[in-house]
């Protein structure tokens, strides 16, 4: 227990510093804005982080200093906002009513029809404009992956976004106040633990990772909340109680990425967005996969550690990480242990994690020179969808073209993310040629018995899984066999 415990959250909402001592662990930012502050410009469309009508910006002091990112207010808990700056649609126009350039572009290009998704779209585009003022069409589409519009067909919105990219952002409010807000947030972040009791339970924000260890020893049944892209839905959809809830999004120590000769070590609190650069640089096709996880708001919130810790059979990060031979470090109290990631997933909903233990970091070994690697995601809709199948392939060929090592891992094919060991075995020692690949494809039948659900039938899952191996083979032969919406260099595998 640290010396001082604070009993209120402190954050900035638009221009106002808020001290909030009255908060339950399940209070979402959206309900706080709409019901308690009557900031009704932020809308509820789905309450599950998929439609983006509730998009706001959250500025946080991360490893790179103050960064504003779009998030889904519907699944973001107020408890996660200590020492953050929340910016809502009401903050954009000037007091005299003059529209912000992003808003003006949306008006000029007829980017709104019913208007309900519009504030969220404006906020997503605003977040983009702050970060990449001269964004191209591909970047704009990526920004809007988490914003559904049912009226416009998006064309007018994309035209507005391209027009917005013509205006200069240097005089923008958030850019002008960047230093002042950074200073203020640093001041609000006092390193103390926050503990708030409410009728529906306790909200805890540990002051440090050591403190997190102590908190979890004291409350081994606590819910650890990082990006809340999963836990948010437990509350908004299943009305589960999560108290005591421990919010770890402020722990910068968990957000470090370090790289050396052997590989990349990533803290469990690193968001998808923050992980992008390190993972897409050295690992072929990882960037493409990464851009298809959730929408931008979800990637800004969700963490790699959370994706692993929740043990979903359809999480998108475990298959490539298992294929790469990643290792997981867990911490309990101050003691740590490291295991192979693939051993972490025991069965559906069951992981190798003791009460009070948390995921500390993940280590991703460098892809050895000469190894071929690819990860493919199959979903009903290309972007912002959950995988029907996610397959990752790592292959090492000897000088004579025989398979020296194969490590193939899949999501969506079993109760946990799992390797296709029969297929691997069918290939190891064989020539890497089409006939052998087609023979090995049949071995998937021995590895997996997939389910039929609303995402795909068992038959489709099996067929595409086999065909993904074929795709991998063809790509290793230099063939372009994937659809690319935006022109890119061909897969390097």
């Amino acid at each position: 227990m640290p010396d001082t415990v604070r009993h209120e959250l402190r954050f900035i909402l638009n221009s106002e510093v808020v001290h909030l001592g009255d908060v339950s662990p399940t209070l979402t930012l959206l309900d706080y804005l709409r019901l308690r502050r009557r900031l009704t410009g932020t809308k509820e469309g789905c309450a599950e982080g998929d439609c983006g009508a509730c998009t706001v910006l959250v500025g946080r002091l991360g490893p790179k200093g103050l960064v504003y990112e779009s998030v889904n207010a519907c699944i973001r808990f107020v408890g996660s906002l200590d020492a953050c700056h929340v910016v809502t649609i009401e903050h954009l126009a000037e007091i005299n009513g003059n529209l912000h350039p992003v808003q003006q572009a949306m008006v000029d290009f007829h980017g709104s029809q019913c208007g309900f998704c519009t504030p969220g779209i404006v906020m997503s585009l605003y977040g983009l404009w702050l970060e990449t003022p001269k964004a191209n069409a591909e970047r704009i589409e990526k920004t809007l992956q988490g914003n559904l519009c049912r009226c416009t067909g998006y064309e007018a919105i994309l035209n507005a976004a391209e027009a917005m990219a013509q205006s200069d952002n240097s005089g923008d409010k958030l850019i002008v106040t960047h230093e002042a807000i950074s200073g203020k947030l640093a001041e609000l972040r006092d390193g103390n633990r926050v503990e708030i009791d409410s009728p529906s339970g306790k909200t805890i924000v540990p002051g440090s990772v050591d403190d997190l260890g102590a908190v979890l020893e004291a409350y081994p049944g606590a819910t650890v909340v990082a990006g809340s892209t999963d836990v948010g839905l437990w509350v908004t959809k299943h009305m589960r109680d999560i108290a005591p809830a421990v919010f770890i999004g402020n722990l910068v120590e968990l957000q470090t990425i370090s790289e050396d000769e052997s590989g990349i070590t990533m803290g469990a609190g690193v968001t998808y967005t923050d992980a992008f650069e390190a993972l897409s640089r050295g690992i072929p096709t990882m960037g493409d996969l990464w851009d298809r996880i959730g929408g931008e708001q979800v990637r800004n919130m969700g963490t790699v550690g959370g994706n692993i810790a929740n043990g979903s059979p359809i999480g998108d990060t475990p298959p490539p990480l298992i294929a790469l031979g990643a290792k997981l470090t867990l911490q309990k109290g101050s003691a740590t242990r490291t295991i192979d990631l693939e051993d972490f997933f025991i069965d559906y909903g069951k992981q190798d994690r003791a009460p009070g233990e948390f995921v500390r970091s993940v280590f991703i070994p460098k892809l050895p020179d000469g190894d071929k690697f690819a990860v493919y995601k199959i979903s009903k809709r290309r972007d912002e969808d959950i995988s029907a199948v996610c397959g990752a392939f790592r292959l090492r060929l000897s000088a004579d073209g025989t398979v020296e090592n194969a490590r193939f891992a899949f999501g969506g094919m079993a109760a946990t993310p799992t390797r296709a060991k029969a297929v691997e075995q069918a290939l190891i020692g064989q020539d890497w040629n089409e006939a052998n690949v087609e023979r090995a494809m049949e071995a998937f039948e021995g590895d997996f018995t997939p389910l039929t659900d609303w995402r795909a039938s068992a038959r489709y899952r099996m067929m595409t899984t086999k065909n993904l191996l074929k795709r991998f083979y063809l790509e290793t032969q230099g063939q372009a066999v994937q659809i690319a919406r935006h022109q890119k260099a061909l897969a390097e595998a």
Partner: protein
Amino acid sequence: MGETVTRSSSEITGGVHTPRRHDSAHKHVTGSAEYIDDMVEPAGTLHAYLGLSERANAIVTSMDLEAVRNAPGVIGVLTAADVPGENDLSPTHRHDEPVLADDQSAFYGQPIFAVIAETREDARRAATLARVDYEERPHHTDVVSAMEAGYPHVTEPLQLRNGDAETALASATNRLSGEMRIGGQDHFYLEGQIAMAIPGEDDEVTVYSSTQHPSEIQHMVAQALGTVSNAVTVHTRRMGGGFGGKETQGNQFAAIAAIAAKRWNRAVKIRPDRDDDMIATGKRHDFHVAYDVAYDNDGRIEALDAVFAARCGFSSDLSGPVTDRALFHCDNCYFLPNVRLRSRPMKTDTVSNTAFRGFGGPQGKLGGERVIEEIAYALGKDPLEVRKANFYGIGERNVTPYHQVVEDNIIHRIVEELEESSNYQARREAVLAFNAAGGVLRKGIALTPVKFGISFTATWFNQAGALVHIYQDGSIHLNHGGTEMGQGLNTKVAQVVADEFQVDIETIRITATNTGKVPNTSATAASSGSDLNGMAAANACEQIKARLVAYASEHFGVPEEQVAFVPNHVQVGNQLIPFHELIRQAYTHRVQLSAAGFYKTPKIHWNRETGQGRPFFYFAYGASVSEVTIDTLTGEYHVDRVDILQDVGKSLNPAIDLGQVQGAFVQGMGWLTTEELWWDDNGRLRTHAPSTYKIPLASDKPKEFNVELANWSTNKERTIRRSKAVGEPPFMLANSVLEALSMAVASVADYRECPRLDAPATPERILMAVDRLKQA
């Protein structure tokens, strides 16, 4: 007094035929546009939440709501027994759709009780605490299995006949038959269903409802309360999207809010969570189409016999007119000399399906296009060639299966221009060449046309009212019976009023739809909003203008023909009087500055018994070309390019119309590609939120998207400023996406066989079709 100038040269802002921005655009982008959930709640507002059944077809043997009643914050519970009036919401008065189910669960997710609590969260948590026992019965959620099980129709089927299909089929040059399955679609309006009711004195209640049909809400609320319509006032400022999903589906929420408001004498708001909204409200009808067609060696249809069966759900709702419209549109642009068309509105143990943009027309059209595609593959022709061979003629071969003569046919010119501008023929050659290389990726291209009939087929709905006041300062208050759901109706009607009085559009305040101002309105549906309400508003303006002209003529002693409305002024002889000045004077001379306008569509009639008449005032036309790429290993695909030419007559607002075309196309594309409704073995819908139900994203929009309005077109009929309806017709332009995907699939078997690709063409259906054709 007026200036003595001969003529003002300036133009008004926001007149007709100009690309005026949406009247709420500034409010949309700042978040200040008010939706019902944003309104300030009256002190003491309560919140209602629905309890849903958990069986597809069952008797409710007991319902223990004690725990619900005792939950924190709960004020009370409503069940069927608590409905003071009639426990029925059927829009066609068939008494088959309860506000709250009585002792039977007709589908998984049917509302069986409502809980009223101090907060929405309290109500929602409490609703989970009910203990309900059921006696289960077999259920059929699928239209084919319902037909096989001998389920009844929910309403009378329709048959359309022209010529002698049976004889012509028997003597066919060529003949083929087949079937097609077409999936439904959730509206996925971004603002879900919501209502807030505020009790008044006596039996009065005011209901704020997100609805396309305030008059129906009024009648249903009155019926459920056991009172009369004059006790109920319904108010709708705007919806966050409707698409047909708020034509009848708001009734339940409004009725429950109103019942609770009267019972506890407090304001009551009800807003379901997105999942419950998607589970408990109706959708686009899924269809099964069976066809038997005779055709000659040029692909010209000799006869068609087709049955359109629809998954209607447990009650009739609007399934009668929806399935009728499917039959009205399966001819699309094609002359069917001998034809028999039959609808089968099937009862199923699912939510009652309802209106959705196109209203059965899209399904009908898609079935008809499948027939064209089959003929094309059978004869080894480009489907476009078969289409052209079958187009309705000008002055001949122009009688529809419902015996209306197509008098305004412009499809030849539309298709010819689009074929040219999209470079269709050369691109088709390139696609064939690309596929001939035999790679994993395959391409497809298709050009499909659209002809869509405009008018409600229930003739009496083709009427509208408007109310225009001019206040003493010259500012204008505009009200009409249409509702604003994002389509820009209010903007268009205001443009009409601005044009009538020749005043800047800023002079006009557009006000919320209110049953107390304009009574007995029709739903804002069937693409009719601006046709009907624009005309009604123009009529109100004409009445006031006539009084102003009479006044000015008499007062200034000039002949009436020398009084004219010119930009922001009135020309009276050689005087130019500012509009507001003339209004001030007219007021002091006791001229009535308010008028109720009215309009009814002329020429239309329809006899459902004989299947003959003129149900449509006119037709809107359009065509699209889609080019796609598929991955034959995974079934994944991409829409590479789309070109559209759409007829909107003489557009009231080209910017708004363009947005309607783009939006409708992408929504149609979603219906035919990634939007899939999936029921499990328990009859439970499992795709009921955006995490599982996938509407198009910005990154699904056609990569290259060229949309043009046919600026040469003008409505042959005397519609408002010769414009045409635009809401629904372009939805069906997306048919070219499905057909292009089909062509890409067909390439794996060298186009020998029609792939018979069902909708939605998810990656899974594409891969299965590829696999099927490879095996064949």
